[in-house]
């Protein structure tokens, strides 16, 4: 196995509290980011449609054009689906570009599928949000390395707002 995100920081954000491990029979929805194709070509296309001096300026791609360009290879699609179904994943949903796959699994299935992962429930943030995350890094079978970028839903917590209400500024002179 290998760790797809060895440099993903794992730290409980301030204000979040662990409520302990999730029951192994609970259901989880995880998102798998599949490796795409033709990214060099995509980068070139972005340049030409965004450069006012280019004859292609403003001639944007449709979502279907982008899908045709970047969608994962048939081998990737087949390999990942086989791996997930063998692990008991169900209700898998893809997107038009087919480079994301969201599936439902039981906690015990997910912990078997992603060695090292251990799902805990946390609560925090201004809205007392509940999330399920793994405080330990996950691994993937080495055979998946050419096919999966990362698995979403394990480590990153919802962001917090940085808006502030400042004290009323001191009047310049007297403000009637």
């Amino acid at each position: 196995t290998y760790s797809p995100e060895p440099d993903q920081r794992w730290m409980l954000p301030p204000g979040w509290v662990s409520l302990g491990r999730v029951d192994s029979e609970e259901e989880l929805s995880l998102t798998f980011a599949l490796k795409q194709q033709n990214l060099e070509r995509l980068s070139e296309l972005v340049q030409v449609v965004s450069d006012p001096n280019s004859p292609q300026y403003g001639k944007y791609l449709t979502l279907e054009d982008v899908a045709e360009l970047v969608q994962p290879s048939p081998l990737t699609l087949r390999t990942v689906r086989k791996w997930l179904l063998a692990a008991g994943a169900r209700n898998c949903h893809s997107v038009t570009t087919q480079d994301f796959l969201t599936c439902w699994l039981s906690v015990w299935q997910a912990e078997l599928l992603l060695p090292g992962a251990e799902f805990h429930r946390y609560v925090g943030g201004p809205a007392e949000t509940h999330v399920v995350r793994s405080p330990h890094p996950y691994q993937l079978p080495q055979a998946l390395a050419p096919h999966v970028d990362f698995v979403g839903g394990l480590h990153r917590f919802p962001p917090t707002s940085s808006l502030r209400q400042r004290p009323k500024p001191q009047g310049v002179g007297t403000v009637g």
Partner: protein
Amino acid sequence: LHLGVTPSVLRQRYNLTAQDVGSGTTNNSQACAQFLEQYFHDSDLTEFMRLFGSDFAHQASVAKVVGKQGRGRAGIEASLDVEYLMSAGANISTWVYSSPGRHEAQEPFLQWLLLLSNQSTLPHVHTVSYGDDEDSLSSVYIQRVNTEFMKAAARGLTLLFASGDTGAGCWSVSGKHKFRPSFPASSPYVTTVGGTSFRNPFLITNEVVDYISGGGFSNVFPQPSYQEEAVAQFLKSSSHLPPSSYFNASGRAYPDVAALSDGYWVVSNKVPIPWVSGTSASTPVFGGILSLINEHRILNGRPPLGFLNPRLYQQHGAGLFDVTHGCHESCLNEEVEGQGFCSGPGWDPVTGWGTPNFPALLKTLLNP
């Protein structure tokens, strides 16, 4: 004289007349997205427009809400996003994306990216208030999200991200202080919006740096060719450069533009709240103004602006008020004494090219 930023203060500062609103006859549209699990209430928008929206035509409600909206208390950020996107980009169809009600094991921002990859028809302009320290995210995640922004740019979507509210940021790497860039602000495929203040908070004057305005240089993404000249000019001419060990001068530099981020009035849960500040405020303002420019482009048979940066830098920020006074915050130590970068003539890593002067910006972005 004014007691804080309202739509009419903004419209006056950025030279928007009562005629500068959407025509209501095009397929133009705009969206704001926030991932704080906050709710937005239409009734707040109604109250906000009753209080502050009488001198410009505007839509009374949002056109579409993506993600469940509950009956929970409204969040101030969700309220602010919508109220100022619909005040600057007035009378333009507006979507709100917020992610309450998603499954606990999902990442709200990732779910938004999946939405972008799954809907053929989306608004042209998206303003997003989300950011994390670059160093807290895995490189595979950052690179993949950056690819998702490339996909959006290829489709002609304009993505605007807040530059962050911690100035240059600060962290310690093996005992030495360094500035701390944030992502997605540091992606080369989005337009990043910094923040300014009025020189006099009670008058409509020229703008100076808001000290919180996020800005700096990426440690992950190399400098894109479209901004090399502008950044080199800044590094050559700035008289207040921090020690070079604090930042990666060859990284993607941001922000690209700015707008007022200080002292907003917001209506949330029916209560008018003053002095709200952050680049989450400047981002929808700049986004709304780009939507107005898209409106004119569409009416003239032109495509929407799409990924703006190559054009913005090519035009050397024409159509923007250049902000040349003030510095943003950074590490509190003897070496830099809490000061990060300082603004200067032309582009700078605190306010980018500056803030929108609508008639001039429209002139430079209408054709081709």
